[in-house]
């Protein structure tokens, strides 16, 4: 009897009541956890951002409206962190896309050891951020580091990397590309492999060379995957924390202090919970904005 209802698309009241009960029952374990540990904190955060929050006696917090947000606009340390984070995103996102795409197109070719190469390029992604960061801190070391050992052979004054205002962020970015590119590489490779081969044959018949094939077949066909890779990497980049925390602690000076580091510092060192919540909300606004902008710029007419 249950089946005929479904086939006809008509659901009698008694049955729909039971399905509602069972439906909610099956959904509830996740919903409770989702509600308590994701939704509720999000709402509390918005609420807190309107207060000069008193961490010791929350009840005595004073409501200050949007003052925290106004304070952010004038806060130089916030501007610096915002700039650093954007700079990090500019350094990493295009690099990850280009390196990932290059590796994917290379591995997709008629190449020996395809599976082996795929595993190698993906593998750093399974490291934890602290291991990747500690490892590269050693590689960049000016005393015993591998990189400057070899650079020292070809140049007399290799960069001071993590101790240098100029090179610290690019060094962190390079580490990040190595660590994370595997994720994007696997997605791009899989997208490239699902481009139908006949499109290339048709393009070749039309006399399209490698570049034209890339521009007119590969890129449009992989558009969805490219869009996804850009958005997910932007979202990760704006939340960067572990690499600078471990490699430079935000230094030298505040040259590599990022938004999340500043948020953490405001919350747990200065106990300005309300102010830190406002930073978090601004970060969310940036990420939502970035995602929507990308959707309109790149992903809009996907199908």
């Amino acid at each position: 009897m249950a089946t005929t209802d479904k086939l006809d698309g008509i659901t009698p009241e008694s049955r729909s009541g039971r399905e509602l009960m069972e439906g909610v029952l099956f959904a509830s374990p996740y919903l409770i956890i989702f509600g308590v540990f994701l939704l509720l904190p999000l709402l509390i955060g918005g609420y807190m951002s309107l207060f000069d929050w008193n961490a010791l006696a929350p009840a005595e917090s004073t409501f200050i409206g949007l003052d925290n947000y106004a304070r952010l606009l004038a806060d130089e340390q916030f501007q610096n962190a915002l700039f650093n984070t954007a700079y990090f995103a500019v350094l990493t996102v295009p690099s990850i896309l280009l390196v990932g795409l290059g590796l994917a197109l290379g591995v997709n070719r008629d190449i020996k050891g395809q599976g082996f190469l795929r595993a190698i390029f993906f593998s750093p992604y399974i490291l934890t951020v602290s291991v990747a960061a500690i490892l590269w801190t050693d590689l960049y070391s000016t005393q015993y580091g591998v990189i400057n050992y070899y650079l020292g052979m070809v140049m007399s004054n290799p960069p001071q990397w993590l101790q240098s205002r100029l090179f610290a962020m690019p060094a962190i970015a390079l580490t990040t590309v190595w660590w994370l590119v595997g994720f994007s590489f696997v997605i791009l490779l899989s997208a490239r492999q699902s481009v139908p081969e006949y499109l290339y044959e048709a393009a070749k018949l039309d006399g399209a060379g490698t570049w034209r094939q890339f521009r007119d077949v590969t890129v449009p066909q992989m558009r969805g995957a490219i869009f996804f890779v850009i958005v997910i990497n932007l979202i990760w980049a704006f939340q960067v924390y572990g690499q600078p925390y471990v490699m430079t602690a935000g230094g030298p000076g505040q040259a590599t202090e990022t938004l999340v580091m500043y948020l953490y510092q405001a919350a747990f060192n200065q106990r300005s919970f309300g102010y830190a919540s406002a930073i978090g909300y601004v970060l969310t606004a940036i990420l939502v904005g970035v995602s929507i902008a990308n959707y309109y710029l790149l992903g809009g007419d996907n199908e």
Partner: protein
Amino acid sequence: MSEATADQSQRQEEVGSSTTTGFSMRNVLVHVAMYGAALVFVIPYAYMISTSLKTSEAAVATGMNWIPNPITLGSYIQLFATSQILQWGLNTLLISSITTLLVLLIDSMIAFSLTRLEWKGQRYLLALIVASFMVPGFVNIIPLYLVIAELGLINNYLAVILPFAAGPLGVFLLVQFFRDIPYELQEAAQLDGFSNFRIYTRMILPLSKSILTALALFMFVWSWNQFLWPLIVLQSEAAYTLPIGVVVLRDNFTIQPALTMASAVVASGPLFILFLLLQEQLMTAVEMQGVT
């Protein structure tokens, strides 16, 4: 399948050689570029393993000796003897395992409810869960910390497990997958008098083994590697996870690359073994995220 691809690549070669004479030259260049890149990718691993097997003096010596001389396990012995790394490993294993199991259970249940049962409001609920993708986890750390503190969970594994299990990724992937299981099967089962619970346990779950395995692996690796949140809520040294532990160790042993690298090997070793055994499933889990 393999015949078809062989055929295809042969055709490709024919087209290639007939249009460009430099085909094989190009092929050589591609090999050089790809294996060159692979070498660059593994240099950090080589450094990590090689340094961990050096004496502490040799590890800071100038000049690069890729093969340690002498090879010693001294750093590993010192590491296990003087730090709580074993405890941290157990903590990490426990947290990742429970998170993974919990995610599989609750995510498959709600995905079943959202795709296989019909009830009012389920669409809005799915939309809400999917929208939460856009909320960066870090935004929540302060209010979440207060919630955790209020519940008395600081230093408790649950403080890490429960927020990790709230993420929407698994729900999203499973909803996509469950949707594609033919409804005729479910209707036949219902005709046979199967309850929804039995349909969930006997039909949907067994049919979804592949995606559940992929999701499990991804969740395991992801929760194993989490850094910022455990750093905030696991404040006593005995409760640390490996990602926190290695950083604390590095700060304690100033400039002791042999020890630091040994701890890095210990912290990432288990995942590397898992990766070597199950790399296909793990990469499938990544691919699925791109398809959506």
